[in-house]
């Protein structure tokens, strides 16, 4: 349209022609540039982080021996090796000379012989003074923890490993003390495995990288913004708490 200016028809036609000659050239250069791919696709996905080995380790939290043994100075002793020679100290004053590494924080259950047999130290004790073998610790726990014992018997409490189909293979019901330290029974806290970092979730750091617009789905002070996220949890030094046998 501008080339048809009535006052300068010839110059307008010439300029249009010279300009037009370059248009295919420019487009060809543009096509070549596109072909060369100057804008490489940058993957927004975070690089893969190695999975910590302890996070996929299915071994139980504790590995109790389920035997009346104690490891001292590189040797393994039966409890009765000592206790058949030495009388038990009076328990009303709990000033131990041995077993000082045992920390007893079991609620109101602060007496050794509530669970350990008074005369036969290779056994545990039930409510009537009869012996319970060391490999049946759930019978001791059941003395007080009735509802949990009921749930454990029926499978709604406690770990089950192996086969859900009992006809196909072995099913392991984990015993109480494979998760709970009998002397400090609450389940031990552990560091969490690394959290998600998927594409769709994007950057979840509390510092907003998108023009200062807060995420309307995450009101401040609750949920994701309540705590810093980009600080990874400190790696556990030796995996999950895998306590030594203390019985």
């Amino acid at each position, binding site marked *: *349209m501008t*080339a*048809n200016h009535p006052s300068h*028809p010839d110059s307008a*036609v010439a300029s*249009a022609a010279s300009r*037009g000659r370059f*248009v*295919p050239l420019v*487009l060809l250069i*543009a*096509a070549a540039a*596109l*072909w060369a791919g100057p804008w490489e696709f940058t*993957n927004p*996905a*975070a690089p*893969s*982080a190695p*999975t910590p080995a302890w*996070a*996929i*380790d*299915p071994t139980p939290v504790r590995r109790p021996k389920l035997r009346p043994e104690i490891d001292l100075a590189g040797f393994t002793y039966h409890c009765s090796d000592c206790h058949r020679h030495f009388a038990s100290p009076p328990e009303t004053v709990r000033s131990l000379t041995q077993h000082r590494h045992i920390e007893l924080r079991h*609620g109101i259950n602060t007496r050794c012989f509530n669970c350990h047999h008074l005369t036969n130290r290779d056994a545990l004790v039930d409510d009537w003074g009869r012996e319970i073998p060391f490999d049946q610790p759930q019978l001791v726990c059941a003395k007080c923890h009735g*509802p949990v014992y009921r*749930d454990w018997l029926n*499978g*709604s*409490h406690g*770990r*089950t*490993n*192996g*086969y*859900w*189909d009992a*006809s*196909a*293979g072995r099913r392991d019901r*984990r015993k109480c003390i494979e998760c709970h330290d009998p002397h400090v*029974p609450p*389940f031990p*806290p*552990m*560091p*969490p*495995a*690394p*959290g998600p970092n*998927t*594409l769709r*979730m994007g950057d979840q750091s509390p510092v907003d990288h998108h023009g200062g617009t807060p995420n309307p789905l995450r009101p401040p002070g*609750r*949920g*994701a913004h*309540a705590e*810093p996220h980009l*600080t990874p949890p400190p790696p556990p030094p030796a995996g*999950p708490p895998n306590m030594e046998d203390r019985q």
Partner: protein
Amino acid sequence: MSTDHRRDGPTPPAGREMTRRGFFRKGVAAAAGVSAVAAALSPLRHLAPGDIPSVEEFLRKHYKEMTPEEKNAVLARIAAAVEKRFGVRPSLLDPPPLDGVEFVYALNISRCIGCRKCVHACVAENNQSRSPEIQYIRVLKMEKGSIDVETSDHHYAPPVVPDQDSYYMPVQCHQCAKPPCVKVCPVEATWQEPDGVTVIDYDWCIGCRYCEAACPYWARRFNFAEPEIPAGELNPVMGLLSNRPRAKGVMEKCTYCLHRTRRGLMPACVEVCPTGSRKFGNVLDPDSEVSYILQHKRVFVLKQDVGTLPRFFYYFDERGSRYHEPIAPVRSEEPT
């Protein structure tokens, strides 16, 4: 404007007129068209050798229509492709659903401590992509006293868990009895198996992601890029419908570890759970753990109002069974 250009030069003979301006215009249009086509085709240069399906892959039938011989051929072809890509000979099987078995999951939210070990065991077991990251399980950290998932947090990273003011609710595929994801699939690439597990035929999926949008639990994941699995971490025990390596552009989801559970084993998340919060079994067996839980414990399902009838149940214990937690003294409300 359409008639103005006639004044620019001599009138050409009728029928074969080609003005200079018209020539340029056609040249511009042709060059623009060629360059646009070239630019549109330029992603083809990035094709990897495996991106173009072979004739066998292209002519493959739907999973349900395959004869056993055809299925064996597919298994052998996929196993060879996996071995070529990862250098590991997989044992790729397609275990059929068991008779008289309906899988049900139960999760004790009063025992879950939010350690996320299930998440990573699932990733390792099911050969999910490490980058971009795909995880089937989300562990929601919930405020005690509420069940509002909108304010939950799955990015928590404290030094240790559990947080005393929170509880944790892991969410994964609920294997619904009325799965909306199956209903919306336009190509029937996903369906519900007789044992209650909703599976995907990864070779039939077109990647439209309708199922991801339909799922009320956000249990389906999409492979936006070619899945990256370190060769040393590949799980060689594979199922055709569960954990064989997926391709770019297909959906995937939790299958209750079909390759394990159809052989009688527990899913990987159950195996690894340190607290025993996760329970799995056959609900048709009256002696199974999940049957006891459904009959005797306090059970709820997530988003019951959407009517999907999940096979994934949350349950919790009586308060008196949590001895280590202090029980708040009950205020006396009665006037004396």
